[in-house]
């Protein structure tokens, strides 16, 4: 750093200019340190989580991931129940949230007049601002009982021939968890879709309309084709959020050590199992196994997230080139 202040081109080491330069160098140094620290933090998080899970990783190996077991008495653990719970709740949430989000985004950009669209967009944003623990409180005390009393009997009547929709009705289970997750990811995906649709060049859609397409045909043929990678990224971001949500799910999913076929039955996701049992771990192996679940969750959600970021960046590059 001192070499910078002894620049031979400078007219002589006056005290004043030296002080000013020092300020620049210092400020730059602090900013660099902050940026480097943030990058290092990401690596440190991954290292620390895996380090804590190590007793279990060492003991059970990779087969932990596809073993269905959670037996504190025999000190034998596996993650399959929770991986299954995480994937099934998140995929259901995604299947419901994606069409709803696209529909909301279309309503806001194509159908509603500006005067109506702005306040509704704000309200959908506010839905994302509700803390997950409050949504979980509502989920366990109000929504779950409603699902058990009305939605699940109806689903069994209509779709009961599928084993997924056949079983005892519970107030807390996989279905209310998936629905609460849907509520959490709709605002995220619909906000991204809205921006994508709003930025679709008007002349493209207008061209389709001028050629005699109906509004929907121009949306499906032009807008969707244009926004498809962006929609994929939005869906991935929503999926990452659904995978990682622990609290609201822990409140409404009920908790279970085993996989049940029925969506009505209690279950657990990776996040919900950690949140509900972190205090009760008695043996080092049990605690290590809980944190192993955390490590699996970290890997899954980081992969989803990085994939989403790459889709977004490629899409942006492609659009700038076009």
């Amino acid at each position: 750093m001192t070499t910078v202040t002894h620049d031979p081109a400078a007219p002589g080491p006056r005290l004043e200019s030296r002080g000013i330069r020092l300020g620049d160098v210092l400020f730059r140094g602090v900013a660099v340190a902050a940026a480097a620290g943030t990058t290092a933090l990401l690596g440190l998080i991954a290292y620390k989580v895996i380090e804590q899970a190590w007793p279990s990783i060492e003991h059970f190996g990779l087969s932990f991931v596809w073993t269905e077991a959670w037996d504190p008495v025999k000190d034998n653990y596996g993650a399959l129940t929770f991986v299954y719970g995480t994937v099934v709740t998140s995929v259901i949430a995604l299947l419901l949230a994606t069409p709803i989000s696209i529909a909301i985004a279309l309503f806001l950009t194509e159908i509603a007049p500006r005067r109506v669209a702005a306040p509704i967009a704000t309200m959908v944003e506010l839905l994302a601002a509700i803390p997950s623990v409050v949504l979980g409180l509502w989920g366990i005390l109000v929504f779950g009982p409603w699902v058990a009393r009305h939605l699940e009997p109806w689903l069994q009547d209509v779709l009961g021939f599928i084993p997924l929709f056949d079983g005892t009705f519970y107030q807390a289970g996989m279905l209310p968890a998936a629905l609460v997750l849907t509520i959490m990811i709709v605002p995220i995906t619909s906000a991204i879709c809205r921006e994508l649709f709003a930025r679709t060049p008007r002349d493209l859609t207008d061209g389709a309309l001028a050629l005699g397409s109906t509004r929907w045909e121009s949306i499906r043929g032009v807008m969707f084709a244009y926004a498809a990678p962006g929609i994929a990224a939005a869906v991935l971001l929503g999926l990452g959020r659904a995978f990682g949500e622990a609290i609201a799910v822990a409140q409404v999913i009920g908790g279970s050590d085993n996989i049940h076929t029925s969506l009505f039955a209690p279950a657990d996701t990776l996040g919900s199992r950690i949140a509900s049992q972190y205090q009760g771990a008695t043996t080092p192996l049990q605690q290590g196994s809980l944190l192993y679940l955390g490590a699996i969750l970290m890997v899954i959600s980081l992969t989803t997230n990085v994939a989403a970021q790459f889709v977004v960046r490629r899409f942006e590059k492609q659009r700038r080139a076009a």
Partner: protein
Amino acid sequence: MSEITPAGADPFDITVRSNGLGRRRRVEKSLGFLAILSAVAAVGVLALVLGTVLFKGIDSLNLNLFTEPRPLFGQEGGIADALIGSVLIVGMSMAFAIPVAVLVAIYMSEYASVRVATFLRLVLDVLNGVPAIVVGIFVFGLLVVGHGQSAVYGAFALSILMLPMVARATQEVLDIVPRSQREGSLALGVTKWRTTWNIILPSAIGGILTGVVIAVARVAGETAPLLFTSAIAANAISLDVSHALPTLPVAIFVFSESPDPGEQAMGWAAALVLIAFVLVMNVLAKIFAGRKRRQLEGS
């Protein structure tokens, strides 16, 4: 064009078939109806949740709620201890996160090359996607093991969640500060760091505040990181941040799993207080965002 309309799937192809116009109109109408229905459903769920929290929480909303700590066994009580704990922990997390976040953003927009800035943007976005509960596990392993829980560790965990949100918001607004402001200042012989500090940051302050307010609203409701760092706390009002302090989200989480109707009522009241705070912060964010736009348009 050729990229987005694969051969054989030309969207304009449809228009050649002029028959079936009635059916196409019907499709159009019913899909429009579904779109409206979806928007109504989203707004309806929001109204339902907010309405339920208001309706169930308002009964327990009295002065005691803000002056008394949580009751031990079914007596009368409030949530003052959790409220104070939340304020202290969120306040500390702001003190940890905001300076670092602003510095990272300054580095990205004022110093870093395009490649480095792009990489840092990816780092921040990935950090933003790390599940809150994983951050909790991280801080548990880094600090809590061997030292025990403390409000400071809780604040550190929340600041990790806040950092990428504030840094991205700041960087985005720094990028739209006009070049002419920087060049004018530098041309007058002002050093780079003084230019950044006295010229660029003040004109970006509206955008930074918007980011801060949204981040605060979000971390104030975070439960998962606090479960590992500041959850095992007494039901008593305390200002000692070196020990675990109770917080609103953790209190709501515990109340929500209680079979006792009295505790559930406390949960609704705490939820009402938390939601009110989050809504106020979101309104503030809108106001700051408006200020940012005016300011940048004015310059």
